[in-house]
């Protein structure tokens, strides 16, 4: 009997050691922050002995916390103008030298890899970086590195030189500030174009759809004559966002010959002056109104 039991004991001990290693390996990679009610719940779920009443109470408490967190997330989403689709974190081992340096100085270092994907006003992005934390007693120093940003293809052009600069300087804050400003300007454009199209559907058309950069103005009585409005939103490599609106008349050859002086060159300049006085929306409204009055 004893021998059997001793054999079973050895087998169990080996199993337990193996499982402990498995758990350590899991924890090394996953980064769930178990504490408070969450930690308590972990205990209950893992044990076989919890009373159903205890589980129900915990479920209620946890649900309350989840509800509060959802409220909080809604507030942040509204305030920051960005919707987080997913945020995954993984622990990462810091190099042995970094650990040694930290320990020699009497502190400790830990790192995680964070991957956030989200949407800012219909523009999708994915951001990945390493976040290191150096702890000295009560002081904590956080550093961001290895920044990698991916944006929806269609908008990559305007952003590419800015993105490479931001990735180099690890300036995550600047990226989001610029992204938000860029989206706000694009939204302004979309609203203005949409408004003008609704008010004057026979004159205004958006060849590239809702998020078109170009708006064409034409009169049915003047076939072939089109006023092209190009509203571009550009991002320079320092993260500055600039809107510029240009008016380009397109008039067929035979019509041009009817004019004494070139109407094309004058129009673009005139529109710039109009913009300076009335602002973009005002200037565009004026042009469209002028065309609709001619009908």
């Amino acid at each position: 009997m004893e021998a059997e039991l001793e054999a079973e004991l050895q087998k169990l001990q080996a199993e337990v050691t193996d499982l402990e290693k498995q758990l350590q390996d899991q924890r090394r990679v996953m980064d769930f922050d178990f504490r408070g009610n969450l930690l308590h719940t972990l205990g209950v779920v893992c044990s076989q002995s919890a009373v159903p009443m205890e589980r129900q109470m915990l479920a209620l408490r946890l649900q309350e916390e989840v509800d509060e967190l959802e409220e909080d997330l809604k507030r942040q989403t509204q305030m920051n103008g960005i919707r987080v689709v997913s945020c995954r974190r993984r622990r990462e081992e810091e190099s042995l030298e970094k650990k040694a340096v930290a320990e020699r100085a009497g502190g400790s270092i830990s790192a995680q890899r964070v991957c956030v994907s989200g949407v800012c006003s219909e523009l999708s992005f994915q951001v990945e970086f390493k976040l290191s934390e150096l702890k000295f007693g009560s002081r904590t120093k956080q550093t961001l590195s290895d920044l990698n940003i991916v944006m929806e293809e269609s908008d990559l052009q305007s952003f590419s030189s800015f993105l490479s600069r931001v990735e180099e300087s690890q300036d995550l804050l600047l990226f989001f500030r610029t992204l938000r400003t860029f989206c706000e300007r694009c939204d302004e454009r979309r609203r203005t174009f949409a408004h003008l199209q609704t008010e004057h559907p026979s004159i205004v058309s958006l060849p590239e759809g809702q998020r078109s950069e170009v708006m064409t103005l034409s009169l049915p009585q003047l076939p072939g004559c089109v006023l092209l409005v190009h509203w571009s939103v550009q991002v320079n490599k320092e993260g500055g966002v600039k809107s510029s609106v240009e008016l380009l008349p397109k008039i067929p050859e035979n019509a041009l010959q009817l004019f004494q002086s070139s109407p094309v060159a004058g129009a673009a300049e005139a529109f710039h002056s109009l913009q300076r006085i009335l602002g973009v929306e005002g200037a565009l409204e004026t042009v469209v109104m002028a065309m609709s009055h001619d009908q």
Partner: protein
Amino acid sequence: MTLRVAAYSKINDTENGDRIFERSLSCLSFLEARARQKKIGAQPQSRTQELKAKVEKLKKQRDRLRAEIDVNQNLQKLRSTMEGNEELEMADDSENAKLLMLMAKHTQLKDALLAHHLMGGYDVIKTNQDKSLCFSLATAYQGNILETYNIEICLSKPLRILRHNIPPFIPVEALAEEENMQKNVRGFLDALSLHLNGFAARKQQLKLVKERHASVEVLESNALCSHLVLMFTKPKEKTALLCSLEYSDHTRSLPTHVKIQCEEQDLSGSAQWQKNTQLLQDTPLHQALESMRKTGQIL
């Protein structure tokens, strides 16, 4: 215990009572002795007993470990499904499954909130019984996360700034006016954040210069770090050069004007020093100095 109660209730019946009482007492003492023995564990139970107990203990430990590993794996799976926005199917409706779902949701929400914070979000919190909002403004430079500033705004119209811990040389009230805080709180916070980040970047550059370039002397600097006068030393001749940097755009980390002067020499003709002036305008200060030191232009 029941025995003790029974013993006391019989005390009223004296004659019979005494006898019963005595017998009860002896019963009690016997039971107490046995209990004491069990507690001490007495003489080592047989080896078999010992082994059985150990096996039980290890079995419990093994089961607990298996359960925790399972829970972690399930949480990971749940999180992946949640993020993929797939329909969460609860095959198992038990209390445990519900708890697991809640746990996964909890961690997902916390991670999303962390993301907002890291992206430079304003971490808005309601305070003062929902009458005000408190915002956090994060600053960072070259991946180093620096100071966080806070500002509390009262929600009663007109909106009022209740308090903040922003240094006085940042014009908070002026910005509130300029950016029309009354109609656009976020615009105001964005502008404030730009100023704070500009300041944090300049301050950090100055700190790194002091740390890494002992041979460069900082002659003048102001609290806003928008005006700097440095003294370089040329390596061979050991002549001193005066470099003044003006940062008139307080939202930027790079200077708007740079001037390098030397008492003994007129540097305006020197192509090298023209290049250095440009370098100081285009590159962070500590990096520009590093480059000048490496190429032997300054000590």
